[in-house]
């Protein structure tokens, strides 16, 4: 399936927005305006936006800590992200969540602190959808690093045993925290593990091609929605960013990073849009300026929002 012109531009805009959001986060950290460290997903935008595009608003997504890609993809808006990053009352978690963004109105079930613990929680939302007969799909998005967490195994087992509507979406960005994934992972590919549980799997060799990401994911999402059970999809990509904003780096070869910069998913999608005459370079530059303005406005909104009151500290602890 090919994207329509409108779809291409909407997806491109989201990818740009993710990149500009994370660049802004870096600037605000450097200037000391914000203190929350970033774990950016630079270079992985095609995966984050491509996997969320086939999901409906009411579908559940369990995100990763790596940047804002899938949050933007699922429909969270910049001002809600910045308000929470700034710890203000206008944040959806009223300054209690910070990095651990959630927006249940768009099915974003929040970032948990122990990556991989949400495998089981995601199987739980999928179980609930199935038991309630709502037709909702759950997606658990994770990286090659998290694929080695203990809950991966029982979650794949149960999702398959009970044929739950869930998609396991693995971004293999080749680095798990501060090491190449092959230093800590016994196999080159993650996805074939699914076969051990009787779960269909697929590898998207070019995870920097949003069309390829979208196509493979849409098939898995449709399968889940038809009640045919889980699928594991692995997307090969590359983490151009360091693990976190204080990461001194050095473990990713410079040549490797430069090589992957040439495969930047945003540049490639931009070239395709121009080549297919969906938009001109000028159009896309105008879009970029709009996106930058949207990010600036959202940051300003957060900066001007009130701090939470210390006396509200116990609010929302219990129902």
């Amino acid at each position, binding site marked *: 399936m090919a994207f329509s012109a409108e779809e291409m531009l909407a997806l491109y805009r989201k990818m740009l927005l993710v990149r500009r959001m994370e660049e802004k986060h870096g600037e605000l950290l450097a200037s000391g305006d914000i203190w929350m460290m970033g774990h950016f997903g630079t270079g992985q935008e095609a995966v984050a936006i491509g996997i969320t595009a086939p999901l409906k608003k009411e579908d559940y997504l369990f995100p990763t800590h790596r940047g804002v890609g899938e949050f933007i993809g699922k429909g969270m808006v910049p001002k809600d992200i910045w308000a929470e990053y700034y710890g203000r009352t206008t944040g959806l978690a009223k300054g*209690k969540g910070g990095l651990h963004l959630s927006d249940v109105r768009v099915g974003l079930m929040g970032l948990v602190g122990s990556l991989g613990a*949400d495998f089981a929680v995601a199987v*739980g939302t999928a179980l609930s959808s199935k038991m*309630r007969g709502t037709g909702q799909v759950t997606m658990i998005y994770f990286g090659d690093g998290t694929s080695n967490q203990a809950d991966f195994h029982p979650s794949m087992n149960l999702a398959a045993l009970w044929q739950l509507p869930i998609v396991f979406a693995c971004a293999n960005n080749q680095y798990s925290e501060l090491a190449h994934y092959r230093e800590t992972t016994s196999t080159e590919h993650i996805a074939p593990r699914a076969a051990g549980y009787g779960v269909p799997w697929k590898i998207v060799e070019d995870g920097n091609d949003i069309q390829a990401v979208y196509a493979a994911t849409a098939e898995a999402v449709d399968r889940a929605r038809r009640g045919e059970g889980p699928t594991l999809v692995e997307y090969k990509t590359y983490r151009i960013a360091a693990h976190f904003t204080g990461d001194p780096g050095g473990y990713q070869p410079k040549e490797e990073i430069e090589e992957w910069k040439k495969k930047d998913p945003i540049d490639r999608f931009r070239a395709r849009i121009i080549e297919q005459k969906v938009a001109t370079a000028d159009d896309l530059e105008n879009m970029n300026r709009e996106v930058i303005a949207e990010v600036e406005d959202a940051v300003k909104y957060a900066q001007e929002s009130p701090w939470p009151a210390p006396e509200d500290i116990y609010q929302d*602890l219990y129902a």
Partner: protein
Amino acid sequence: MPVITYREALNQALREEMQRDSNVFLMGEDIGLFEGAYKVTAGLFAEFGEKRVRDTPIAEEEIVGLGIGSAMVGLRPVIEIMTINFSLLALDQIVNNAAKLRYMFAGGVQMPLVIRMPEGGGNQLTAQHSQSLAVWFAHVPGLLVVAPSSPADAKGLLKTSIRDNNPVIFIEHFALYNTRGELPDGELLLPIGKADVKRVGEDVTIISHSRMVQVALAAAEQLAGQGISAEVVDLRTLRPLDKETVVNSVRKTSRAVVLEEGWPTYGISAEVTAFVQDMAFDYLDAPIRRIGGAEVPMPYARNVERAAIPSDQTVIAAVKELVA
């Protein structure tokens, strides 16, 4: 009033709440076809079927995670963990997710989750299967922790726990399942966070929970024959603690013994002692005495295991020292 066992009381609570609310469902290891390691779910698989009484793999962190996910989006899961000892495998789910997600999302999700599990020793099951770990959960803001001592309390508190929108750690005790007690007629719902005076007395207050309440009552009965009148307060809920009921009793008797089966260091008795001395200092005629299990991994040999668990005789000796 009918007399039933603690096990039957729990079973009635589950059945009644499942009949009342189709969103209530059960998950755990061998709780369906086999009807539970301790038969608490007897008859429920036959009545409600495999969709609502779900046998799970042996994977505690997964079962609790499933409970959390399904509770976040519309269901009311009641999880059975075979014993509290295996809850250690699910601690991240309980402490990091069940207890915190509601707060971290500023109320964006509810967490109507009940995790049932028995604790305690006395069956020669040795160090890793005989622990009393309620305090680990009672330490965590965001959780409610309930530990009933009688069939009526077990039924009334389990029904309330299932209806509550917070995560409830519901602690049972191996040695209580066959104990019997009277059950009031009609719908039985008991509030979480309310202690109960199980025996009225004048000379000393014995504060306890779960099976140790039965030990305290046995001690009080013997003490009465020796001219000492002991009041027994059952905490029933460990988080939040009903300080008022405890303190009112101690203000009346002026002496307190705090009894728990678990290790007392940093334990429930430590917490109770702290607030009693704070709120009733001027009423105390003697230091508060604490009694707990021996601070060792539970040994196997029958006589040594018995010595490691507080008994009525331990309590009687402590009370006599206090009132002497």
